[in-house]
């Protein structure tokens, strides 16, 4: 009797891959675990058991729904790792564990998923953080954008680090770690309906080591945020409103790459509203600003660090920009995404 022919391996995600049966195990063992491999994942338990860190624990959760899935400078996999690490880093935490839940759309090419998971694994390894747990579900064709990833991140905050918006004071110097708008422009350049060619790549990167250096040099740093969706404008507006302060920026001090300026000119966008994925904005007591800048510029991810502006007494909740022409204008807090315009 001849053995039945082996079924040809699937090339695309099918509903069975999320059903909890043999196909799902094959997917996890054959794809996910090939790239993401560590002691916790090898054990394959329902939960990862971690040693309790000495310091306070920072926890964050994030969702990634980007289109396109792969873009110049990264993809949804590496983005998920970097973005989660960055949220922890903004609290001054050293990330020590990540988990990732995947919602896969029926029909997604396995080769694409493989690439994304490989990229996620590489990003985690490079950042020195383990992905200790994961989950996979599959939704019907048409009900997902290829892949959605949700992450949880855990980090340990060293003693003495106290960062928070409530510490921001009038007179604080607002420092950005580098050029603005790179990620948003890189992603847009690949979107149907706007596609253009550019050398701009996403700045997607993990900032925890830069942050560690910054805190070493300036332990009294007041606060940090990573300006992702909505750009620097959204982040600063949130803070100005939350803290009841004003923020004044200097247009000629904001670091923006030529290619980002050009893409924004072409589409009628303002770089202040364009997303970043490897940048932070720090609020620093004025007498420590020079030291902070020096520490940042000594790190590869902070080379283009610059003083963007200052925190003022008001009008409270308002972010203003000195245009470099002697004029001023308000930097608005947009209700939604900035859209390209013709007018």
């Amino acid at each position, binding site marked *: 009797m001849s053995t039945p022919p082996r079924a040809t391996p699937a090339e695309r995600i099918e509903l069975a891959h999320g059903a909890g049966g043999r196909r799902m195990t094959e997917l996890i063992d054959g794809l996910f675990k090939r790239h993401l491999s560590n002691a916790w994942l090898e054990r394959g338990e329902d939960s990862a058991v971690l040693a309790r860190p000495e310091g306070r624990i920072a926890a964050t959760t994030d969702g990634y729904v980007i289109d396109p899935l792969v873009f110049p400078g990264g993809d949804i996999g590496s983005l998920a790792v970097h973005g989660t690490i960055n949220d922890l880093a903004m609290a001054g935490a050293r990330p020590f564990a990540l988990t990732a839940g995947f919602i896969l759309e029926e029909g997604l090419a396995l080769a694409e998923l493989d690439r994304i998971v490989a990229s996620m694994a590489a990003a985690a390894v490079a950042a020195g953080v383990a992905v200790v747990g994961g989950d996979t579900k599959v939704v019907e064709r048409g009900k997902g954008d290829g892949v959605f990833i949700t992450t949880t991140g855990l980090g340990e905050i060293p003693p003495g680090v106290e960062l928070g918006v409530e510490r921001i004071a009038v007179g604080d110097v607002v420092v950005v770690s580098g050029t603005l708008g790179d990620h948003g422009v890189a992603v847009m350049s690949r979107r149907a309906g706007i596609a253009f060619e550019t050398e701009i790549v996403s700045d997607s990167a993990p900032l925890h080591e830069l942050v560690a250096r910054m805190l070493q040099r300036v332990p009294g740093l007041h606060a940090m945020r990573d300006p992702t969706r909505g750009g620097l404008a959204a982040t600063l507006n949130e803070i100005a409103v939350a803290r009841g302060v004003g923020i004044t920026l200097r247009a000629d001090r904001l670091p923006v790459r030529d290619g980002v300026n050009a893409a924004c*000119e072409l589409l009628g966008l303002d770089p202040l509203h364009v997303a970043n994925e490897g940048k932070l904005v720090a609020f620093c007591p004025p007498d420590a600003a020079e030291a902070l800048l020096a520490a940042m510029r000594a790190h590869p991810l902070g080379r283009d660090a610059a003083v963007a502006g200052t925190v003022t007494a008001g009008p409270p909740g308002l972010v203003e920009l000195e245009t470099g022409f002697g004029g001023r204008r308000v930097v608005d807090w947009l209700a939604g995404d900035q859209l390209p315009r013709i007018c």
Partner: protein
Amino acid sequence: MKYVDEFRDGRLARVVRAQLEAEVEPRRSYRLMEFCGGHTHAIFRYGIQDLLPAGVQMVHGPGCPVCVLPVGRLDMAIEIAQRPEVILCSYGDMLRVPGSGRRSLLKAKSEGADVRMVYSAADALALARAEPDREVVFFAIGFETTTPPTAVALRRAIDEELSNFSVFCNHVLTPAAITSILESPEAREIGTVGIDGFLGPAHVSVVIGSQPYESFAEEYRKPVVIAGFEPLDVLQSILMLVRQLNDGRACVENQYTRAVSRHGNLRAQRLVSELFERREDFEWRGLGRVPYSALRIKDRFAAFDAESRFAPAERRARENRECKCPQILRGAAKPHDCKLFGTVCVPENPIGSCMVSAEGACAAYWTYRRHETLSLKA
């Protein structure tokens, strides 16, 4: 960026500013209207009004095709988009504008309509070629700058007999709108609100040339300076207007000589007149009915005219009576004069046309200068 950065030079700007200070006659007021929304945007973006001497006031005109598109026309676009066979292609500017009942194209999309943002009419054409089983409708808006691109796409569709492509045409005309402002009751009254001169739209003029403005200068004795969009262009043009007014001259001057000629782009003009003709009148949001101010596709090409193909119901939406957009668009009032400004009417919830697009006067004030404007209201 060449031909852009040089015209943003702060040092040269300070010089023009100093000249303005020196030449503006004391105790004389200069009310200058920048017709075009792009100029409004530039003025706010660079804080140019902060640089002008006290006597010079900029009045923001209706040159914003998004702002002046009547709600009824947007409702028609939404109705077309809701047909299951239609893919409606639109520029980004129109997607969030609320039509009747707070519906917008984006809302219609969330309810299942196939609405897609395009950067160019050519993208809509490409879509029609790629999706022969769907009806691709291009939502065409804009002044004379944007009409020739629509014309090129339309010409291609006609030549290729692309039977699944059509255009919903809402193109409008600048000279007619300027006339409507000059003919408005407020503008004609002596001793009340008036406009002394115009900053003419640069890119519209690349297409139509400087010649169409000559009649305004002659008939209404108002100087017009065709101004580029960079801050230096704007400042220099304002200086040129001030000089004309000081000298008692009223003619058309071209500041944007690097791209504008007297006759404009004849090829573009010819293509447009081949495919489009003027509507007898068109309802402008805020300005009311303006004769011969808009274009429609010629009957010969009705097969490519979305209005003929889909016959969307003509609607007339009613504007809020408290809304002061009609006066604001004509330069007779400022945003803070309107009760609704900043209270009910904000960019996320625009009541009237001036708040609808980022470069409408009210939206610009709210976005860029609201702290001043609100204290003026108080």
